[in-house]
């Protein structure tokens, strides 16, 4: 049978464009939100997941590095060093700080690291050096772009002038970026002499479990494997953003349903007589419903394709202008959005289908 649905859609190009545009907009919104969510999730732990350690030793109750504090006395480090199976212990000094750069409030997470054993230092250097000296700092590329900083510029951190000597990638946590200074510099700036935030412990082969259990015996101390610590940091994103994202996705789905529903419904009302003619010619309700579903599904599918293409274009362009716009689009999210587009189309058909069912074919005899 001829696709009356396709002809109806193409016969009313403006309406078709509105319908497709509505779905595309909705698809774009959902995909961008999901991509941002995934991007944030990955970014939130990108730096941490690259820190070369087997165990993160934290103060008990401290879950992630951005929302809870962990302060450990040096005595804890000494106790860890004597545990059988421990290969290496490194200090991780750092905390989020806020100060002004070029008169703008700026948040960064200052990490102090041992430049001779840079397990927690910058991971992907873009320019300059990865080993800052006294009075020097390595910043993330996103922070550099945001505040238009270059190598050789100075940053005033709590009265200390630090020279930018390196720009690195992979230290953007979307809410803030990591900046790196020498461990001694960090202790001085952050006033953490005698205190370490985390201990990074490397263990000998096959000793992970026993070392971990021994560390946990130290009062007020917890030990997490690298992957557990990464997961805990990701969970923060889930807890904070997942409800918001769910609401936004729902709103987008409703917008999509409303747009397809309205356009298909008005088209159905306008074409009531023609649907009556089809009924008079022997068209069953089922055959007419198929036309509506086809119209709706075609709008949904084309809207999905247009929306996906527009999303990829935007995700490619926006980061040039908004550096913190970090996204990652997963295949499974594309599938989910495709399913949502189909769902929107089917739901949007409901009212037009009811309308069609009530059309009296005898109206064809009315001139």
């Amino acid at each position, binding site marked *: *049978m*001829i696709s*009356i649905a396709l*002809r*109806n859609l*193409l*016969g*009313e190009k403006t309406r078709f464009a509105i319908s497709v545009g509505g779905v595309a907009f909705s698809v774009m919104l959902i995909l961008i939100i999901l991509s941002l969510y995934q991007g944030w999730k990955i970014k939130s732990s990108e730096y941490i997941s690259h820190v070369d350690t087997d165990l993160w030793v934290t103060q008990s109750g401290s879950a992630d590095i951005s929302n809870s504090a962990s302060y450990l006395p040096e005595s804890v480090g000494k106790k860890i060093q004597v545990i059988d199976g421990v290969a290496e212990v490194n200090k991780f000094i750092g905390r989020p700080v806020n100060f002004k750069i070029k008169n703008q409030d700026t948040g960064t997470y200052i990490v102090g690291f041992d430049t001779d054993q840079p397990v927690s230092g910058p991971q992907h250097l873009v320019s300059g050096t990865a080993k800052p000296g006294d009075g020097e700092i390595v910043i993330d590329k996103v922070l550099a772009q945001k505040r238009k900083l270059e190598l050789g510029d100075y940053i005033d951190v709590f009265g200390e002038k630090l020279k930018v000597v390196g720009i690195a990638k992979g230290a953007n946590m979307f809410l803030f970026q990591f900046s790196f200074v020498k461990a001694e510099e960090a202790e001085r700036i952050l006033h953490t002499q005698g205190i370490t935030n985390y201990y990074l412990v490397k263990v000998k082969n096959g000793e992970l479990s026993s070392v971990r259990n021994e560390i946990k015996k130290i009062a007020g101390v917890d030990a997490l494997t690298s992957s557990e610590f990464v997961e805990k940091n990701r969970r923060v994103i889930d807890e904070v953003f997942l409800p918001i994202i769910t609401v936004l996705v729902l709103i987008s789905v409703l917008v999509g349903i409303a747009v397809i529903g309205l356009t298909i419904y008005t088209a159905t009302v306008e074409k009531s*007589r*023609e649907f009556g*003619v*089809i009924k*008079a*010619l*022997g*068209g*069953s309700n089922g*055959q007419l419903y198929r036309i509506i579903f086809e119209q709706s599904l075609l709008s949904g599918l084309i809207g999905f394709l247009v929306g996906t293409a527009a999303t990829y274009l935007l995700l490619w362009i926006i980061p040039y202008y908004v550096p913190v716009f970090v996204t990652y689009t997963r295949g499974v999210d594309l599938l989910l959005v495709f399913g949502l587009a189909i769902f929107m189309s089917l739901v949007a058909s409901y009212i037009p289908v009811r309308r069609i069912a009530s059309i009296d*074919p*005898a109206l*064809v*005899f009315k*001139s």
Partner: protein
Amino acid sequence: MKELEKKVVLKIEGLTKVYGVGDIEVRAVDNIDLEASSGEIILIMGPSGSGKTTLVTMAGALLKPTGGKIFIDGEEIVGASEKQRINLRRHKIGFVFQAFNLLSNLTAFENVLVPLGLAGVPRAIGSKKAQGLLNYFDLSQRADFIPEKLSGGEKQRVSIARALANDPKLILADEPTANLDSRRGKDVMRLLRSVAKNMGKTVVIVSHDQRLIDIADKVLWMEDGRIKNSETLATDPNCGNQVEMKEHSHKIDYRGKRYYFCSEGCKREFAEKNSIPKSYF
């Protein structure tokens, strides 16, 4: 002219349609009997509101009557299920409308294809059939045009082609010439006559157009839901027009058969062609 075997295609018995009850009761169609055979053209005339369209809507299985029976090709349709009525409309009834009612976004060819598709005819077979019908109605050059680009006469020809797509026994035409000028109206009349006489279809026409009397075999006059007058017409054997069978009509009785003519000229021409001696008229 081919002689076709006559068979009753449409039979209506005591058909009644009542709207409203009590004081506001309206008998749109009141106890009507009617019979139409293959190859026959029935013209139903009457003032607006006389019940013509209601009658044809019921005959088209689009409206359920309050009482009476309708048989199409021997099948009783009043008590039929919705599915059976849909099937009947697909296979046994073709509709021709005053407003053409072509699907605006489809081409002429696709419009003819629609009933074939609805009836589940495979695309290849349907396409052949549709193309054949468009050729028959001299529309092959206009096959790819959407209705907006067709003239009124062309639209009505497409509409007739569509009505014939599934080879129905009965064609119901509602004011088929009303939206057409004189020349195009005559074209459509000629085609409807051809549909009845050459294809053997039963054609029931509802119209105000007096010109249609020229092609009708029977004219019914409806008023207040009833048939007030019924007149069977004869075909002028010379020009093919329908003529009243009255005593004062132009006629010839020859070898046991009576011929009626629309004019004295037709009568003379027919007599000359058939070498009928003057003594017979």
